[in-house]
């Protein structure tokens, strides 16, 4: 079965607001990586965490391997934050991706 469950599948925010994306794992993962696919289709690395939290500008991510989840918080959303966000975690020999969250930020 799926090892990475990502939610929500879609999210709409107004500029200046915030929300959280979440990935639940069916097994204990050693790390998590978050990406954004932008309007040009490129995958942008956001975070790589083996534990704890990391923050970069208006984005903050947390990873709890024991509780089997990771979150990505977006605050003060801007139009350019729109895109599809993916989490990914090691699954044996490979990295397993969540199905993505499509974020639309509107004025």
């Amino acid at each position, binding site marked *: 079965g799926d090892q*990475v469950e*990502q939610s929500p599948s879609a999210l709409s925010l107004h500029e200046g607001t915030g929300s959280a994306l979440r990935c639940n794992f069916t097994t204990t*993962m*050693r*790390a998590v*990586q978050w*990406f954004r*696919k932008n309007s*040009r*289709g*490129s*995958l942008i*690395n956001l975070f*790589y965490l083996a534990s704890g939290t990391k923050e970069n500008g208006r984005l903050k991510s947390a990873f709890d391997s024991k509780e089997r989840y990771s979150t990505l918080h977006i605050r003060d959303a801007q139009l350019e934050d729109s895109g599809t966000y*993916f989490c*990914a*975690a*090691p*699954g*044996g*020999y*490979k*990295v397993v*991706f*969540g*199905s*993505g969250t499509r974020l639309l930020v509107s004025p």
Partner: protein
Amino acid sequence: EAAVTQSPRNKVTVTGGNVTLSCRQTNSHNYMYWYRQDTGHGLRLIHYSYGAGNLQIGDVPDGYKATRTTQEDFFLLLELASPSQTSLYFCASSEVGGGYAEQFFGPGTRLTVL
């Protein structure tokens, strides 16, 4: 300067056509990967390699071959393209495999098979 590059960025071919997608990384990474990304599926691993001359099968390998000619270069080959292979293809590299290190992605190649 981009460390993982892909070419072409866009490709249109016909059913039965022969397509080669190229990826080059200048990270000096051992591992390279080919994924396809379709709406609702996230990224799915096609093939990967842990060094020149090595090839490992991923989760969705059917219809695809790959070859790692050097540490820098990893190619994905579709010898008889089918419409089901219309997708966005990403190449990635990492220093080690299995998620022990961050993966770095190329800009993607959009392939359309008519």
